[in-house]
C-alpha cells in the first residue's frame, strides 16, 4: 500500500464558545490553510467530516457538503460525514488514510466538529443517551457518567484503585492543558484536594473525573507519500491503524474492567506497526473519565492489569515516566467536542514531531506515538500509530 503522511493541522479554540457549528469549523480550516505550506484549496480531492450528532445538537444533517462550502473545497473523489460517536474524528482520519493508501485519493482533509453547549444542557444530555442502546440501556438513564462510574466501582473493588489515584490523572491532564491555549481549561488550575471534594456526577465519579461538554473543531491534511514534501518538512507518517468492536448492549459486555476490544485493537496496531507497548513514548488516549485513562494504560499494555492506578500515581504516564500520556491535556483538560477530539489528538502528535508545542509538554525525541479513542460504552476502540520517519 502507498504510504500516507499527515502534513498539517488546525484547531479552533475549544470551550463554551459563542460560535455555531459552521463557525467553529471555519476557524479550524483557516488555521489549517495557514499552517499547510503551498496548500491550494483546489488540491483537496476528498473531505471526511467527523461529527457525532449534528442532527440533534445543531439541527443539521447532510453536513459534509456544508463543510466543503465553508472550507472552500470542492471534493472530486470522496465527500462524506463519518459518525462513530466519540471516535468520529479519528475515524475520519482512518477513512482518509484508507482512501489515500489505496490510491483513490491524493490529498484529503479530515475534519471534526461538535457544537455541544446548547441553551439547554439537558437537551444535549438527552442526545448522549442515544449513544448506548437507547430503548434498553438509555431508557433507564444510561449515559456515559453512570456507565464509567460502574467501571470505576468495579476497578476499585477488583484492583484496589483509589479516588486519589484517579485524581492524579485529572491533575496531570489539567496541568498539561495549561500549556495549551486551545484547551477548554487553559489557564485554570485544579488542585487534587479540590478534585477529591468536588460535586458528585455519578458516584464514585466527581466533576473533576469527567470531561466536559465542549464546542470545538479541528482539521488535518493527509497526502500520498510523494506529495508530503510539498506541504511540510516534518510530517507524521501513518504507520498503522486498527479498530475493534465486540458488543453494544451493556448485557453483552464481557467485563467492565478489562476492555477486550482495546486489547485486540492494540495487538493489531502493534503487529501492523511492528512495534510493542514498551516502545511507545507518547500516547494520546481517550480520558473521557479518569478511570478510562487508567483502564487504557492496562489494556494498551503500558502496565499490568489492575496496576493502572498505581501507574498514574507513580508518574509513569507523566513527563519523565515510561510513556507520556495526553500531553495536549486530554479530554479532561481540552474538553471533548465529540467529532473533533480525535482530530485534536492528531494535531498534537504532529506538533510534537515538529517540536512546535511548548516545552512544558514536549516529549523530546519521540519517534512514534499512538492515538486512541473509545466510543460509546468502550465498545469500539480506534487506534492510529504515527511515526516521525517513514
Amino acid at each position, binding site marked *: 500500500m502507498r504510504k500516507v503522511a499527515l502534513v498539517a493541522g488546525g484547531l479552533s479554540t475549544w470551550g463554551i464558545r459563542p460560535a455555531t457549528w459552521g463557525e467553529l469549523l471555519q476557524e479550524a480550516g483557516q488555521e489549517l490553510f495557514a499552517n499547510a505550506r503551498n496548500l491550494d484549496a483546489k488540491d483537496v480531492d476528498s473531505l471526511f467530516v467527523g461529527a457525532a450528532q449534528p442532527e440533534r445538537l445543531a439541527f443539521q444533517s447532510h453536513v459534509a457538503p456544508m463543510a466543503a462550502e465553508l472550507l472552500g473545497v470542492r471534493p472530486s473523489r470522496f465527500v462524506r460525514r463519518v459518525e462513530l460517536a466519540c471516535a468520529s474524528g479519528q475515524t475520519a482520519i482512518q477513512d482518509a488514510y484508507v482512501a489515500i493508501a489505496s490510491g483513490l485519493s491524493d490529498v484529503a482533509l479530515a475534519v471534526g466538529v461538535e457544537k455541544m453547549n446548547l441553551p439547554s444542557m*439537558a437537551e444535549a444530555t438527552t442526545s448522549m443517551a442515544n449513544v448506548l442502546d437507547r430503548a434498553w440501556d438509555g*431508557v*433507564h438513564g444510561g449515559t456515559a457518567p453512570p456507565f464509567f462510574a*460502574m*467501571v470505576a466501582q468495579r476497578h476499585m*473493588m477488583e484492583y484496589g484503585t483509589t479516588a486519589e489515584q484517579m485524581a492524579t490523572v485529572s491533575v496531570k491532564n489539567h496541568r498539561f492543558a495549561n500549556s495549551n491555549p486551545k484547551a477548554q481549561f487553559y489557564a485554570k488550575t485544579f488542585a487534587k484536594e479540590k478534585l477529591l471534594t468536588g460535586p458528585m456526577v455519578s458516584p*464514585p465519579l466527581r466533576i473533576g473525573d469527567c470531561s466536559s461538554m465542549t464546542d470545538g473543531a479541528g482539521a488535518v491534511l493527509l497526502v500520498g507519500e510523494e506529495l508530503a514534501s510539498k506541504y511540510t518538512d516534518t510530517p507524521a507518517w501513518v504507520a498503522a491503524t486498527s479498530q475493534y468492536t465486540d458488543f453494544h448492549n451493556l448485557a453483552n459486555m464481557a467485563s467492565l474492567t478489562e476492555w477486550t476490544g482495546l486489547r485486540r485493537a492494540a495487538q493489531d496496531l502493534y503487529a501492523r506497526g511492528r512495534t510493542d507497548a514498551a516502545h511507545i513514548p507518547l500516547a494520546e488516549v481517550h480520558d473521557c473519565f479518569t478511570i478510562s485513562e487508567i483502564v487504557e494504560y492496562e489494556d494498551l499494555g503500558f502496565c499490568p492489569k489492575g496496576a493502572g492506578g498505581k501507574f498514574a500515581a507513580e508518574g509513569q504516564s507523566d513527563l519523565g515516566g515510561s510513556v507520556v500520556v495526553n500531553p495536549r491535556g486530554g479530554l479532561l483538560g481540552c474538553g471533548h467536542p465529540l467529532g473533533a477530539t480525535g482530530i485534536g489528538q492528531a494535531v498534537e502528535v504532529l506538533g510534537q514531531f515538529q517540536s512546535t508545542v511548548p516545552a512544558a509538554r514536549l516529549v523530546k525525541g519521540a519517534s512514534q506515538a499512538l492515538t486512541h479513542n473509545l466510543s460509546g460504552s468502550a465498545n469500539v476502540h480506534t487506534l492510529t500509530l504515527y511515526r516521525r520517519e517513514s
Partner: protein
Amino acid sequence: MSAPSKPYLLDFYPLEDEKQTRIAPFFAHLRAGRLTTTKCEADSSVHWPPRVTCPLCHGNRLVWVDLPKEGKLYAFSALVLGLPMGMEGDAGAVVGMVELGNSGVRIFSRIRGRKYEDLRVGDPVEFETYDTGDGRVFYRFVSKL
C-alpha cells in the same frame, strides 16, 4: 396498548405494540409479570435484548423463555448531575447491572427502593414492572434488603 404522550424524539421507551415491533410478546409478558427473552433452539444461546433472528447462527427457531426475577447487583451508580431531558425529576436515582440468578444474563436497569449510599455490590434485587404513564409497561428492579 396506548401511544406515547410526547414526541417520539423525547420518548425513551420502546414502542411496544405489534404494529411497531416484532417482539411485542416481550411487553405482553411484562404485563403478565414475566421477564422473558428469546432463546435459540438451534444453539441454545440466550439473547438480551430479545431478537427476531439469532445473531449467533442467523436462524429463526427462537422461543420465549423466562429469566430469573431475582438477581444481585454486579455494579451500580446513581444519576446525580447531568440527567437527560425527561429525567430531570429523577436526581439521585440508582442504576446498575443486575446478575439474573444463575442464568448468566446480566442486564442494565433502574434500581428502586434504596439510596446509593445504602447499597453494596452483591445486594439482592427483584424484578418489577411499572406503568410508563401513558399506558405502556416497562421493567426495573427493586432492592430486597
